[in-house]
């Protein structure tokens, strides 16, 4: 077995006495999609924010490529090639697609000024690959549709060679066609050897896209299963009852 891309070991974090994440361990291998499931407030997003650097775990360790990692803020996470696509789409609405794609990592001219023309050209290139119908390069992203905004967010992760991708309900705000587009994109990223944590509510998407699924309830890990070996109902049982299916246990 290869070394896991990511290991979250025994992570705990509490807010004002409430254990949001309670001694949870999950891992992720290259070319794999691991679904994170659970009710609202089960602790999925909180757990994953420890990896993306938005939160700092009270206890527990993060290992990346078999080495212990220190992630204290989003900048550290980026240094480990961890990219996050947030549920709320972390885009600055008042800026255009190129400015958002390169936010925090602008291309600059030799004189140190931001090179808008070059950034727009690069954005046109990558959007041509990901979403060839995308035309709105000159307008603020507030003028884009949900799917177009999602493709900007995904383009950002892809452009900067993410090795580890965290997607927080990437299809929640999308129509069927756009959901299909994102699904194909996830398949493509898998083939390229990325590891993807997918936070997802739609059980159908989980069965279709994920290799393994880790289910959380009340801040604790119910269990991790191979999606091929279980049924929709097994996973629903884990989410609702917090009970691991007999045959895999």
């Amino acid at each position, binding site marked *: 077995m290869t070394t896991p891309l990511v290991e979250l070991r025994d992570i705990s974090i509490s807010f004002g006495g409430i254990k949001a994440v309670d001694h949870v361990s999950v891992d992720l291998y290259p070319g794999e999609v691991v679904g994170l499931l659970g009710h609202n407030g089960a602790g999925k997003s909180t757990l994953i924010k420890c990896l993306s650097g938005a939160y700092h775990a009270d206890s527990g360790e993060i290992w990346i490529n078999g080495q212990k990692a220190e992630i204290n803020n989003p900048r550290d996470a980026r240094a480990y090639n961890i990219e996050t696509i947030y549920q709320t789409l*972390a*885009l*600055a609405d*008042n*800026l255009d697609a190129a400015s958002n794609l390169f*936010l925090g*990592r602008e291309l600059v001219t030799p004189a140190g000024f*931001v090179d808008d*023309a070059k950034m727009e*050209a690069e954005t046109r290139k990558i959007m041509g690959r990901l979403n060839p119908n995308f035309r709105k390069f000159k307008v603020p992203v507030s003028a884009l549709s949900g799917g177009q905004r999602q493709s900007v967010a995904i383009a950002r992760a892809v452009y900067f060679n993410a090795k580890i991708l965290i997607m927080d309900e990437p299809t929640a705000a999308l129509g069927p066609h756009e959901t299909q587009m994102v699904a194909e994109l996830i398949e493509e990223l898998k083939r390229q050897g990325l590891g993807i944590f997918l936070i997802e509510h739609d059980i159908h998407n989980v069965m279709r896209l994920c290799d393994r699924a880790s289910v959380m309830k009340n801040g604790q890990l119910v269990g991790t299963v191979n999606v091929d070996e279980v049924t929709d109902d097994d996973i629903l049982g884990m989410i609702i009852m917090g009970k691991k299916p007999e045959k895999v246990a």
Partner: protein
Amino acid sequence: MSAPAEAQGGARKKSFLDTLEIDTRMLGMVVAFIALTIGFHFVTGGLFLTPRNIFNLTIQTVSVAIMATGMVFVIVMRDIDLSVGSLLCLCSAVMGLLQVQLLPDIGIPLGSPLIAPIAIVAGLATGALIGAFNGWLVGYLTIPSFIVTLGGLLVWRNVAWYMTSGQTLGPLDDRFQLFGGINGTLGAPLSWAFGVIASLGSLYALMQARRAKIRHDFPVKPVWAEGLIAAVVVIVIMGFVWTLNSYSVPPAVLKRRFDAAGLTMPDGYTDVYGLPISVFLLIAVAIAMTVVANKTRFGRYIFAAGGNPDAAELSGINTRLMKVKVFALMGMLAGLSAVVASARQTYHTNDIGTLDELRTIAAAVIGGTALAGGVGTIYGAILGALIMQALNSGMAMVGVDSPFQNIVVGGVLVLAVFVDIVYRKRTGALK
């Protein structure tokens, strides 16, 4: 500009303004400003658009306009700075004290060429330090900027009062007074040189922008459109310089100058003022701030943090440190405005800059800076400051009573923001 016509996109023939790629909002402000000045010109019987009045109008605008450029950054980051008027007063007090008391006391005589530079550096540093302190309170201690700077509004003017014991400090150093306006102008030859250099610089910038687009195969404006814009820019710059160079120094003032130098004035001798150094300073600040806003990472992050603070933070931008930097910059600009304002009145008084925080915020807001954050331009803020000053001095010339002047300015502020909201809704920028 109806929505269906927009949707058809490329099929529709581009309008004249679309082809020029001119910001219609800015065009509206410029038209409003021109209409205002022409209106006052007629009402005053041809007194408003004279070289003398335009000269005065520009030097009266400088102090608030300089601070308004910084206020754009502050407001774009969803903050506010109510302390700039008081901070201006404190910086002015520091510089005044240095010039008339402290520096002479440590052996630098009055009139020494060292006095002005030392005082100015100290004034700018005072502003930047206090601004940084405000920014630290806002960014790191997460106290709302409204409260921090409301406190500052009370604190800094009274620190200045305490330091100076409320005394008027003056007269300020002669070289320092050069930054005040009428006491420091470039004269005709240098002003013309400035006009030529500014024109060439603008043409070069336009050409570079076009080249960058061609290099990346982006669509460019037709050549006639570029030519028209270039022509307008050059005409405006040279026309402005020509106007200022048409303002003659009154013979009595010239005679005093010759008398002071111990010479007699030759018969028929004339001279003109030309571009005031303070206005030159404002233009330099405007260019620098525009470059910072549009061409640097720092500027990009200010707008990103204003548009979506969480997105900026998650993109690895240190938004707390950004606040420190933006408030420090605002403070330094308040220090610079203090140089201009105190030099203009040739002494420091404890009421200098009173209510300037409101004028500054109003200028930025009339200029299109959105209090919700994320939107604003430097040129808009300067235009906003000019419109307010034109209103004030125009009404004063017409003879409108003081209370009515303020009533009108207040009404215009609210009206301008309302028009802006309607405009943004129509164009779909605001939903």
